[in-house]
């Protein structure tokens, strides 16, 4: 018995050692054998990574099923990821192991990084002059110009637009009327400030916490910068050549930091206390603790839902601008769909065909209705108008109009830089420092600029030959 036990032990130990010694670098996913054609019997797989996990994921799954019904030779799987950041990081790690999905949703901030890393193939090169892919028409001229100008790099389409948004102003009309205010809503910082002064009695008697709120994030800073036609980085905002310097001390940048600080110290701006707190800011507005909110147009859906629930009237208008400088235009936010590089031609065509279907007129319109994101195609806007959607939901039109009226300059095309996400952290930190301490906002912005420049220099050392 004892011997038997010892033998068992030895066998067990050997097994453990054998398992541990299995080569760790063995390829887990060997590249699939080159498939020259996809058939309904053996469909080619197209994996799509997106960042939505709610009803927006359901919408994407429905489109995938519709696409598979049209093209049974492809099998589309949609894999949700936690956030834009994690999606991009997972993609970078997957790229090292050669297990990337065929399509990934990348946010605007990641554009330079994915271009530098060479993860994806520009869709222009896949189209190669064709006007339809597997029966799905290519009509990129139909995309709204400001969206087109953001996502075309050196005049070339790199990706297919999907979810695009722009910040707008939301107003709780019930609260405004209590203070004797009504439409039109404030168009500028200065008018917002004046409206806040009118709302102060409501703050004093404890009805609301403050006048307005926003998600405290760099994206809104960038928007206000673009409105004043000020560039965030050099070399045509990184569009004409690689950005080498970040500019956070321009008059426009300082004006924004000062405005936020002034609004906060007067008690007008309600800060949730956490940076990048989208949910918190919506919560403040929905629970009627602030009369105004500046937030992405993609919040329109959830705002409308709470408005219906608590029976309040909510009106939207364009993002207030600095009247001292005037309004040039707004940048877009959101993400686009990218096709991985190095795919088999048949798979590549399938992936692109899916994206073309995904963003066609009907789908762009229904996506807008489901999510509140801007319809990315002019034809989708026309379709929605025909259906009378905007008459019933005027708030949804604001974002489209704001983008359509935007003048296209390097500033409103939006910055492109490799260290965008880190720079964003530095910007929000500097804004917070300026707002919460007695110090000079210019000093904080200058400090953030210095740090951002070191990061950008490091980045360029690694990515530029």
């Amino acid at each position, binding site marked *: 018995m004892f011997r038997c036990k010892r033998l068992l032990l030895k066998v067990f130990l050997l097994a453990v050692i054998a398992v*541990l010694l299995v080569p760790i670098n063995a390829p887990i996913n060997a590249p699939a054998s080159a498939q020259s054609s996809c058939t309904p019997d053996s469909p080619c797989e197209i994996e799509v990574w997106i960042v939505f996990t709610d009803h927006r994921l359901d919408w994407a799954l429905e489109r995938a099923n519709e696409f598979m019904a049209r093209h049974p030779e492809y099998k589309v799987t949609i894999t949700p990821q936690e956030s834009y950041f994690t999606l991009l990081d997972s993609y970078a790690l997957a790229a090292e192991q050669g297990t990337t999905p065929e399509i990934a949703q990348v946010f605007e901030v990641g554009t330079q990084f994915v271009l530098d890393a060479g993860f994806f193939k520009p869709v222009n090169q896949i189209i190669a002059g064709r006007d339809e892919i597997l029966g799905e028409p290519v009509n990129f001229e139909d995309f709204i110009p400001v969206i087109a100008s953001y996502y075309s790099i050196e005049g070339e389409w790199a990706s297919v637009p999907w979810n695009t948004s722009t910040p707008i102003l939301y107003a709780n009309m019930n609260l405004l009327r209590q203070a004797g205010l009504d439409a039109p809503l404030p168009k500028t910082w200065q008018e917002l400030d004046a409206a806040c002064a009118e709302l102060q009695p409501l703050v004093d008697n*404890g009805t609301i916490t403050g006048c307005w709120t926003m998600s405290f994030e760099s994206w809104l800073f960038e928007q206000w910068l673009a409105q004043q036609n000020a560039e965030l980085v050099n070399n045509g905002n990184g569009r004409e050549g690689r950005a080498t310097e970040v500019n956070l001390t321009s008059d426009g940048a300082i004006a924004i930091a000062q405005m936020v600080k002034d609004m906060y110290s007067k008690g007008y701006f309600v800060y949730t*206390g*956490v940076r990048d707190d989208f949910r918190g800011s919506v919560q*403040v507005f929905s629970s009627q603790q602030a009369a105004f909110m500046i937030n992405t147009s993609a919040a329109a859906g959830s705002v409308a839902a709470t408005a219906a629930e608590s029976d309040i009237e909510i009106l939207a208008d364009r993002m207030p601008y600095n009247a001292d400088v005037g309004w040039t235009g707004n940048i877009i936010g959101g993400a686009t769909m990218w096709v991985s590089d190095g795919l088999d031609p048949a798979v590549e065509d399938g992936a692109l065909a899916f994206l073309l279907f995904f963003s066609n007129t009907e789908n762009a319109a229904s996506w807008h209705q489901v999510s509140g994101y801007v319809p990315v195609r002019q034809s989708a806007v026309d379709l929605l108008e025909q259906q009378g959607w905007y008459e019933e939901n005027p708030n949804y039109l604001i974002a489209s109009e704001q983008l359509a009226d935007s003048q296209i300059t390097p500033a409103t095309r939006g910055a492109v830089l490799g260290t965008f*996400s880190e720079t964003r952290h530095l910007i929000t930190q500097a804004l917070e420092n300026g707002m919460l301490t007695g110090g000079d906002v210019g000093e904080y912005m200058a400090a953030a600029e210095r740090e951002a420049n070191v990061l950008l220099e490091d980045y360029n*050392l*690694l990515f530029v030959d």
Partner: protein
Amino acid sequence: MYVIPPILIVALAALVGAIWLVYRFRKHALSPVLGAVLGVSAGVVGALMFMWPLNFCTFERERDQMDLAIGLVLIFVGTVLCLTAASNLARRVLRRERTPDSDETHPGAFQGASAKVTAAVLLLPTLVVLALFLYLPMFETFRLSTQLARLGAPRTRFICVTHFTRLFSDTNYIQSAVVSLGMAAATVFLAISLSLLIATMAYRPIRGGRIYRTLLVWPYALSPVVAGIIFKLLFNPAAGVLNHYLQLIFGFQVPWLLDRTIAPWIVILAGTWNIMGFCILVYIAALQNVPAELEEAAAIDGANAFQRFFRITFPLLSPYTFFLLVTTTTYAFFDTFGLIDNLTRGGPLKSTSTLMYQVYVVGVEGRDLGRAAAQSLVLFLFVVGLTLFQFRASRGRIVYGA
């Protein structure tokens, strides 16, 4: 191209090593020649330990004063480490030779010719796991900390100790170190003292004692992330439970997470609440092991309850207190990350941005692997230093066994 030629540095380290070991060997009546040979080699190895992989880059002309200083410190540390190891090892080996009868056999030790092989085989799985998941990543961290490296970048670039010099001149980082230390100290003190207080009450055989004890330990079963969410629900300044009732009853609100003097205390409170269950568990078990006779004897001698607690019970608990000191310190430095990420994200004004949270911000959010590696090394040394200090400071004050 070097400020100080590498060969000179190595020679100097070798000389220092030789002198030191000859002196030590003389003192212990061992051969000075052997000491000299050993000292020279230990000095050379010590100097090269960090400088070989770094290629003596800190002594290059284009580096600044700070780099040079770090280089000298590294050589000093390497040489001291190697010399201490060599001197201790030599003394042990030479002593054993002189006393051949020191054939100690512990009961339960492996016996026989194949004993060493069996032991090695049994240890192998653990060693392999340790090597793969602990030592290898650690060496990689050392390597990365000297590189410009980013996730997804096509290449890395060697930049010597620039990451470290930048850290030491970064006021934000120094502030972060102060924040970490302060918050850890407060969390550890609160957690240990409160749980000792609670445990002294809860360990007694009272009616329903088991239920109380289970309830007391419960918070420990929650991960810091969940604890963070719970405290966020309570202390959210805009829509939290606490402010809701404050407004309702007293008509005012407190900017819990907005104020840079209050916010760290909320994190400390959440951390204390989260880890206290563990401390209570340990203290209850410990208190049940304190012999009742001692306390009875003291009571008969006329010692009052306070005297009995501070003169008898507390000293007897010292090994457990020390254990808790080390574990809660580690918790406060590393595991509060989940709390902070949910409660404050390091804000407001970086008042809750601990060293651990900084590593996350730089390495994960910023994808700056090199800088994050340097920061995590500094954090590692920080905690190791703190633990060593705790061991030193508590030496002789801990009573094991009654």
